Every structure is written in structure tokens, then in C-alpha cells.
């Protein structure tokens, strides 16, 4: 087994029990399949256990082979993972390009005290490397030394101390999931069929609600499962997020890797004053947009405004969110966006550009000038008649869109020019990639 005794050079192989965890998932689903189709499998009779055992042995052998041919090596500032029995694959990632590191524990691995280390790079799915599975403490130690190295510190630096920032209560997680917009739509759908069934006096009509019931509860359960026990802690090497009921996940988001953030308030959350904080994090750009949304881009799933501001103060250090002066879109925007024009606000200060909009679901998005990838000014035919233009700041893939719709056209061009200039200045100041070198490692 590998040790972390000499962290300069680290070579190893996943924990031997990895094959059990990986095969276990298939064996469990196979057992499930056999149980569900019990009647159909009757004719196999007493051979059934043997058949199942045979399949299990094949799964185990395959998983064992793949474990045998998996090794990783950390040296010369990169992490290399070699896999493949027949088709060899070698992936390398530069440690100083690391965007974030997650420690994920699926239920099965958790039972065996194992964890998966996920390294996220810029470039989404393609730039993702996983070390699965390691012992939990080993995974955590490795994460600490990788983060220290990525930050430009000595790898022997002990894991930075953390300060708890926010802890979401169970009731707010459940309540937030139940009052989220998709859940509400689901409930309305179910209610519609129930009422129709009663009014029509035909109970069969209620069956129409079934797909709604299934999908709504699946979605609500999924949200609760992922976000249960969400805690946000602040440490010098970034925001530490921990969450999950069955599969637990602990993420570290280094400072300065947050590309854009938004505070969202779905309609019914207003009653409780809850908000959610999402972020675009480079590297978390899942191909499946949903995965990225659900797992990785939420900095605070549900919390009070004060809690959201506490998280934002770490995600966007040095920005007083409430002090940014926002300006309304001109009144003639009502001819283009009759229902929303009065909610459009945009403004900026020396560090961020901010936009606010939404009647039912309110959104407030912020982006640091130096994180801008590109800026677009666009004018459609109807906007041209009204002398309006839309400015969009492009960020890396994620839930946050920073768009200022229907600005006065002259103002829009001014925003474009100013943002392009500020983006340049911000980048010039942003210094080296190794974020800890820019600030003394105190606190």
C-alpha cells in the first residue's frame, strides 16, 4: 500500500477492496433484477443461486483485473492515472491547473471506509480524473497535499484549519425541495388530475397523475438526498462543502476558481426568506448539464439571505453585494419584455458586474471582471426599433448566465467597452495561478 511518508513522490494503486466496491454495484443490481423477475427465473430452479454466483464471480474477476491494471503516480507536478487491461489509457493532469478536488463516498464504499478522489480540471468531463477508491483518511490527506501543492505551498503543509460558515437545517432542505418550482409544477399536475377525477366521478382519471407523482417525488428525493446535511466551511484553501445522505461528497472550491455566482429565490421560498447560491466553477462543467447543476455547482442549496451573503463574501472576496449600484432598464423596454422589464437591473463596481431580474423566481448574478471570457452586444430587429441592446458576459459552463437585457443601446456599448477594459486590468492584476503565493498564508 502506498503511504504519504514522502509526499514529493507518491505512487500507488487503489485500495484492494476497490474491486469489491465496483463489482458490488453490479451484483446488487443483478440481485435486484433476479428478485423483481423472480417468477420468470423460476424455471432456472435451484440453478439460480449458481448462475448468480457465476455472474458475481465474473464481475469480481473483471473488477479485480481492472484494479490490477490501475495505478497512479504523483510526481513532477502532475498526477498520472494509468488504466486499462486491453486498451491502455494514461491520463495526466497538471496539479497547478486543478480547479477543485472532491472526496466522494458512494453508499457501498462508505460501508467499507473507502472514498473516491475526484480531480477537476478546466475543460469539463474530459478533464476529470478520479482515483477510486482510497481509504478515507488517505484520500483526505492526498487532497490536502494536492491542494497545498496546487496553491504553491509545501506539500507537507498540514490541511488548513477550517471555520464553519453555514449549516443547512434538515427542515429547510426538505422544505426547499418541496417548494422548488419543479416540485410545485408537479403538485399542480397531480392536483389537476385528482380534482378532475373527483369532478368527473371517474376514479380512473386519477391514474393520469401517476407519472407526475413518480417524477415529482423522484426529483424531490434526489434533491434532498444530494443536499442533506449541507455544510459550508471556510478555510484558507477554499470553501469546503460537505453534503449527501447516501452518497456523501466533500468538495473544496479554491478561492478565485469561482467564475460567476448567482443568488436565486424561487417564488415560494419568499415566504421563508430562503435563497440558493449557485456558481459556475470551471471544471465542473458536466456534459450532462443536470449533473453539474445537481452536484457540483451549488454553494448553498437553501439558506437565509444572511447565510447566502456569508458564502458570497468568500466566493467573491472583497465585494459588498448590497453596495453595488444597479440601474433599471429604460422604460421603453416594456414594449419588448412587457412583464419583466421593470425587474431588469444591471450595474458594476470596480470588481464585479451584476445583473438582477425575475418576477417570480428572482435572480441576482455577479461576475468578477477578470473572469470574463468574452462579451457580446446584440440587437434584434425589435430592439433596434426601440433603441435597445442586450449585453452578455460569457462565463464558463454552468448555471449562471450574466445577461443584461434591454439596455439603452449607447449604455450597452459603454458596458461592452468598459468590461473589456476592466477584464484586461483584472487579469493583469490577478497574478500567478498558484493562489496562495499572492497572499501570505495566514489565518
Amino acid at each position, binding site marked *: 500500500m502506498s503511504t504519504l511518508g514522502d509526499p514529493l513522490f507518491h505512487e500507488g494503486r487503489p485500495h484492494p477492496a476497490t474491486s469489491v466496491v465496483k463489482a458490488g454495484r453490479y451484483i446488487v443490481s443483478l440481485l435486484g433484477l433476479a428478485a423483481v423477475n423472480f417468477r420468470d427465473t423460476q424455471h432456472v430452479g435451484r440453478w439460480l443461486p449458481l448462475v448468480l454466483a457465476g455472474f458475481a464471480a465474473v464481475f469480481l474477476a473483471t473488477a479485480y483485473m481492472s484494479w490490477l491494471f490501475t495505478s497512479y503516480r504523483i510526481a513532477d507536478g502532475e498526477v498520472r492515472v494509468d488504466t486499462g487491461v486491453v486498451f491502455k489509457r494514461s491520463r495526466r493532469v497538471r496539479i497547478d491547473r486543478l480547479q477543485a478536488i472532491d472526496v466522494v463516498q458512494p453508499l457501498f464504499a462508505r460501508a467499507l471506509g473507502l472514498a473516491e478522489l475526484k480531480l477537476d480540471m478546466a475543460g469539463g468531463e474530459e478533464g476529470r480524473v478520479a482515483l477510486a477508491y482510497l481509504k478515507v483518511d488517505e484520500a483526505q490527506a492526498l487532497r490536502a497535499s494536492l491542494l497545498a501543492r496546487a496553491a504553491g505551498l509545501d506539500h507537507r503543509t498540514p490541511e488548513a484549519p477550517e471555520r464553519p460558515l453555514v449549516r443547512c437545517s434538515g427542515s429547510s432542505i426538505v422544505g426547499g425541495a418541496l417548494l422548488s418550482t419543479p416540485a410545485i409544477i408537479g403538485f399542480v399536475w397531480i392536483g389537476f388530475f385528482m380534482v378532475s377525477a373527483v369532478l368527473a366521478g371517474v376514479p380512473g382519471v386519477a391514474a393520469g397523475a401517476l407519472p407526475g407523482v413518480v417524477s415529482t417525488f423522484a426529483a424531490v428525493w434526489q434533491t434532498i438526498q444530494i443536499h442533506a446535511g449541507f455544510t459550508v466551511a471556510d478555510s484558507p484553501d477554499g470553501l469546503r462543502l460537505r453534503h449527501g445522505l447516501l452518497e456523501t461528497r466533500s468538495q473544496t472550491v479554491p478561492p478565485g476558481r469561482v467564475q460567476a455566482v448567482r443568488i436565486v429565490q424561487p417564488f415560494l421560498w419568499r415566504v421563508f426568506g430562503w435563497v440558493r447560491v449557485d456558481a459556475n466553477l470551471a471544471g465542473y462543467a458536466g456534459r450532462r448539464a443536470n449533473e453539474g447543476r445537481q452536484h457540483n455547482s451549488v454553494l448553498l442549496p437553501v439558506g437565509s439571505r444572511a447565510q447566502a451573503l456569508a458564502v458570497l463574501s468568500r466566493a467573491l472576496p472583497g465585494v459588498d453585494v448590497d453596495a453595488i449600484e444597479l440601474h433599471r432598464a429604460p422604460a421603453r423596454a416594456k414594449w419588448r419584455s412587457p412583464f419583466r422589464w421593470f425587474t431588469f437591473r444591471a450595474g458594476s463596481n470596480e470588481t464585479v458586474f451584476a445583473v438582477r431580474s425575475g418576477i417570480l423566481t428572482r435572480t441576482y448574478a455577479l461576475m468578477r471582471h477578470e473572469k470574463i471570457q468574452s462579451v457580446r*452586444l446584440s440587437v434584434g430587429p425589435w430592439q433596434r426599433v426601440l433603441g435597445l441592446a442586450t449585453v452578455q458576459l460569457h462565463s464558463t459552463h454552468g448555471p449562471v448566465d450574466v445577461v443584461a437585457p434591454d439596455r439603452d443601446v*449607447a449604455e450597452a456599448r459603454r458596458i461592452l467597452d468598459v468590461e473589456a477594459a476592466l477584464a*484586461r486590468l483584472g487579469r493583469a492584476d490577478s497574478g500567478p495561478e498558484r493562489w496562495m503565493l499572492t497572499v501570505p498564508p495566514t489565518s
Partner: protein
Amino acid sequence: MKAEARTVTAMEQAFAPPGEEWAGVSVQLRTMRRAILGAVVAVAAAAFVIVGIACELVLLVVAGLAAVALTGLAAFRAIGRNFGSWGYCERAEDLLVTRGVLFRRLVVVPYGRMQLVDVTAGPIERKFGIATVRLHTAAAGTDAHIRGLSPGEAARLRDRLTALGEARSAGL
């Protein structure tokens, strides 16, 4: 009336080049598109004539040809206007690209943000001696491309952008 005129000039100013002129694209882009349009118009006209004669409907032939001619003319002019709308400008730190008539767009891409630069030319584009340069950043939303560049200009732009991108490269 006056208000409208003011709006129009404000609109022009919003898409004005930063400083000098916009660098335009090769006339070959217009030529290529008009050639394609010509081919489409010819096929459509032929179809109307054949179907009209086969069905012995002179009216169909006349109406069809008139419709084809009108839409062809409109498309011909639209191609010309679209060609005129293309422009780009290399500044010290960023590249500006503007295009579109009905939907006007102006995109600024800082050199330090460019991840890669693509030069593509399809078979028809190659026949007409033009190429497309496309800029990619870490944002999927960045849709900055310049069509209808001469191969020499496309190569020069690609090399210059890559060099500048490397020199000014910044982390995410």
C-alpha cells in the same frame, strides 16, 4: 421622426469600430453565397417549369417563376447586406468581431482568454478561396467566428491570435 433618427445614429455608434475602420471580409464570401443562391434559384425555377408543363398549368409556371425571382432578388440583396455587416478589428489586447443585419452582434474576445483558434474551409469555400476563423474560449457561449477570409489572411490571423493568446494567457 427626430427621435427615430437619433436612435438610428445611437445604434450606428453602438456598432462603430473602436478607432479606425472595421476590417472587412473577402468579396469572395458574397460571390460564393450568390453563386449558391443562383444554383438554388435555377433548380427551383426548373422545378416550377417542369411541374407546370407536366400539369399543363401555365399559371403555375408564371406564378412560380415570379415567386422564385422575387425571393431570389430579396436573398441577393440580403447576401449583399450581410456581407457588408461583417467586420473585425484587432486591438492590442482583444479582438472585436461584428456581424448580422437583422440581428446585429458585436463580440469582444480578449486574447488572454482564447483557448484555441480554428481555421476551417469546406469544399465550396475552398473553391472560392475563403476560410472561416473561429475562436474558442472556456465559455461555450463565445460564438466568435469570422467567415470569408482569404486563406492568407486566415493563416495570418490564426498565427497572430495564437501568438498573442500564448503571450497573454491567463489562468481561469
